[in-house]
């Protein structure tokens, strides 16, 4: 029992176990830098790649020795040959609070009903260099508050912690990037009991990209030095109009122990919570989105807004045969929201059958400017032979930086198409020894069948033919008959009375035939003796008694018991009496009378047999 239980547990573990890498999804975690000072910053990056459509956010292990900030998500999604391929990168800023070597235990993901686990990562935290109060990284030691910061976000003179939100511009074109920044200020006078919890603003009407975080820096406000931490997002408005980027919220818990008496301390300790919760909110920011200008809009423009677009087109082969697929890749690079670019149309490909076979996007966020590489894949199947040039692919776009429309263009692609002859299909070279490789040069379907077995009209299926039901029923009838026959055969073997009764008439007939032959031969006495034996023998067999001593009266009594008609009984008596007379008075035996009597005897016995049966 225990062994079975253990096997079941093992089986369950095998089914529900958390693989480090599945066939279709891989998860990787990394941290950079691997060594960081107390109060510094390290970027924890988790990359998920594979064939999936949706995933939940990663489940991070407890990070008690770090302050943790979400630093954005970047997602790439492609659909190639009907298969989804996604890659999502989650970024977190970790700011260590104490020295030591910390192992960040596996980070888990739920994708569909499967759970995936990233590799553990290790980070070494060293003491901050003495006397250094400036922040980490490349940021200047002190910065001023951004100039575009809204006045409502300015702190009161004695505010220790506050937040502010800014945008880099308040009037943009459709699909032009707006960089939104949340700044979190703290002067260090108040101690936080927990990491701040950030809730991003609503983004209705925008396509949003999280941007990598800026390093912390110091700034001076009201003659007081503040440490500033920033979170940035890129907003791309989808349509013209006036939009609002909503409030961002930062929930904090500050230590207020100093302002409470001991009773309050005990009560809060019993309730399991210390500190005072506060919610810091930013102001809403209004953005005006202008429509794209009508003037100068080129033909074929389909809404692309980007900067410095570059288009390239490549074919995976320059020589092909008729019917052989050629993969064409069109790559578009530039700044802006590249995901919204629609597939450019290939022109001048009338001699080809064309399919769009997929697309993918790689995003980059260098210097907080979203840029990307968008790839479109096509399959062209040449229908005829010849030399073809696929004309350049053109992408018309609006450059908001230059406030004008532009057209980016790729180079043309040349393709030479040879006929897909039968010989090409047959060029299969078999190794002739010496280790030469077998090579299949071309694939084609097998040839038509030129001689069909028959082109007659289809016969009805077997199950609809008339004999089908007979074939189903016949074995059953056969078996039923066999059972009856076998049962009778066994009774004949085991039941003597039944066996004698069964053959009584047959034996009587045989004897009467012998009697008739004797009468014909003129041996009347012998004929009557045979007839007597036939009649008496019949009743002896029917009654299952010995024939000796069976008198006419005994037979008559037995027949009466069998409710046989009295005329038949009289006939039997007459036959037996005539036989007795002929047997004992030979002179009275006449052959012609005997034949007539034998006929009567046969009819009478047959009638009695039918009546008894």
């Amino acid at each position, binding site marked *: 029992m225990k062994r079975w239980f253990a096997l079941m547990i093992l089986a369950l573990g095998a089914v529900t176990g958390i693989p480090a890498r599945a066939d279709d999804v891989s998860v990787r975690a990394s941290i950079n830098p691997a060594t960081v000072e107390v109060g510094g910053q390290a970027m924890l990056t988790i990359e998920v790649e594979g064939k999936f459509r949706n995933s939940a956010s990663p489940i991070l292990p407890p990070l008690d020795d770090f302050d943790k900030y979400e630093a954005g998500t970047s997602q790439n999604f492609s659909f190639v040959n009907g298969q989804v391929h996604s890659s999502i990168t989650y970024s977190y800023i970790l700011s260590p609070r104490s020295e030591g070597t910390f192992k960040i235990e596996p980070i888990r993901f739920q994708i569909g009903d499967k759970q995936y686990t990233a590799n553990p990562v290790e980070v070494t935290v060293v003491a901050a260099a003495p006397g250094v109060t400036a922040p980490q990284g490349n940021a200047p030691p002190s910065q001023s508050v951004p100039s575009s910061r809204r006045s409502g976000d300015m702190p009161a003179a004695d505010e220790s912690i506050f937040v502010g939100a800014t945008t880099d511009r308040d009037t943009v074109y459709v699909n032009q990037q707006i960089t939104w920044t949340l700044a979190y200020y703290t002067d260090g006078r108040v101690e936080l009991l927990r990491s701040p919890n950030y809730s991003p603003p609503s983004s209705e009407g925008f396509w949003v990209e999280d941007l990598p975080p800026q390093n912390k820096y110091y700034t001076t406000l009201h003659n007081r030095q503040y440490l500033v931490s920033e979170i940035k997002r890129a907003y791309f408005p989808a349509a013209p109009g006036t939009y609002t980027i909503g409030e961002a919220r930062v929930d904090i818990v500050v230590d207020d122990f100093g302002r409470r008496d001991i009773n309050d301390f005990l009560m809060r300790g019993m309730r399991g919570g210390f500190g005072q919760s506060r919610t810091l909110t930013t102001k809403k920011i209004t953005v005006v989105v202008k429509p794209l200008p009508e003037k100068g809009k080129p033909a074929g423009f389909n809404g692309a807004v980007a900067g410095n677009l570059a288009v390239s087109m490549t074919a995976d082969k320059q020589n092909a045969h008729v019917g052989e697929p050629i993969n064409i890749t069109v790559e578009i690079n530039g700044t802006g929201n590249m995901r919204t670019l629609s597939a450019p149309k290939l022109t001048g490909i009338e001699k080809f059958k064309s399919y769009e076979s997929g697309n993918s996007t790689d995003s980059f966020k260098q210097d907080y400017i979203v840029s990307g590489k968008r790839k479109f894949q096509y399959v062209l199947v040449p229908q005829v032979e010849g030399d073809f040039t696929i004309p350049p692919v053109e992408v018309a776009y609006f450059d908001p930086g230059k406030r004008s429309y532009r057209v980016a263009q790729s180079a043309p692609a040349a393709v030479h198409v040879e006929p897909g002859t039968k010989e090409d299909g047959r060029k299969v070279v078999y190794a002739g020894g010496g280790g030469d490789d077998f090579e299949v040069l071309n694939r*084609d379907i097998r040839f038509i069948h030129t001689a069909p077995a028959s082109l007659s*009209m289809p016969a009805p*299926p077997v199950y609809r033919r008339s004999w089908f039901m007979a074939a189903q029923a016949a*074995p059953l009838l056969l*078996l039923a008959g066999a059972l009856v026959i076998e049962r009778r055969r066994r009774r004949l073997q085991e039941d003597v009375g039944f066996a004698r009764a069964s053959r009584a008439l047959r034996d009587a007939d045989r004897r009467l035939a012998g009697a008739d032959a004797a009468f014909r031969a003129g041996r009347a006495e012998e004929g009557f003796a045979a007839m007597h034996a036939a009649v008496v023998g019949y009743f002896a067999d029917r009654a299952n008694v010995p024939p000796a001593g069976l008198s006419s009266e005994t037979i008559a009594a037995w027949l009466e018991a069998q409710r046989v008609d009295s005329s038949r009984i009289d006939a039997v008596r007459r036959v037996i009496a005539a036989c007795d007379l002929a047997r004992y008075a030979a002179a009275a035996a006449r052959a012609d009378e005997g034949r007539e009597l034998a006929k009567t005897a046969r009819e009478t016995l047959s009638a009695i047999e039918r009546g008894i049966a």
Partner: protein
Amino acid sequence: MNRRACALVFAVALCAGARAAAATDSPESLFVAGNSAYEAGAYADAIDRYQDVVSAGVVNADLYYNLGNAYFKTGDLGRSVLWYERALRVNPRSDDARANLAMVRSLLRDQQLVPAQGGIRNAVLAWHHRLTADESTLVALGLYALFTIAALLLIFRRTRPVRALYRVASWVSPARLFGLTMTQDLVLGMVIMAALAGVFAGSAYAKVHESEDSRRGVVVTEEVAVYSGPSEDSTIQFKIHEGTVVAMRDGRSGWVRVDLPGDLSGWVEARTMERI
């Protein structure tokens, strides 16, 4: 005038002549005309000839196979899959149709919807896939006959002729190795025959059921939107492409419900599908 042009003129003339005679030609001559057009590269005309034979009511695996080839040569992968599938339904042991179908499937766009080849299930059911409904029915009937014979021998096992027959036949019975009595041997034989007859009858039933309901269909247009309901106002859930085989269910005023692997289901316009 080069040789290719001559061949084209010949094919066109051949097809024109064949078309004129089509009304009166026998299925055999139409089939031969289709083959000639195919060999001359006039695939569209070959399709017309073969379709004339189909319209005459002929059901033939070679005819369907050739139609699949001709559609493939015209680039119509959807109908190519359709006719290869039909050829395999008539003659499941046609290796040529199976090979060509595999090749066409490798060119389809919806690769994740192409039925998986190999696997334990397919290996176990290989015999089922290689028999027609009629063949399975006849095998089941044969096994039923053997069951009946075994039952008759069992009934008459006490008779002298049956005992004599068994004495001879038991030399080839594997039951002899296990020391079974005549009765045990015959009962074992009956059980085996009944089980096998049931299996083949089930196979025949499945094929007849599938054939009569025509539950499988093929996408014959380049791309088909699958809606959440039988209306263009419904949400487009996903798109499938030519050659994809689907399970067709109930239909309604120009729409048909389709099921795909992975619990995918939706409605498509009936004109975009052909039943196999």
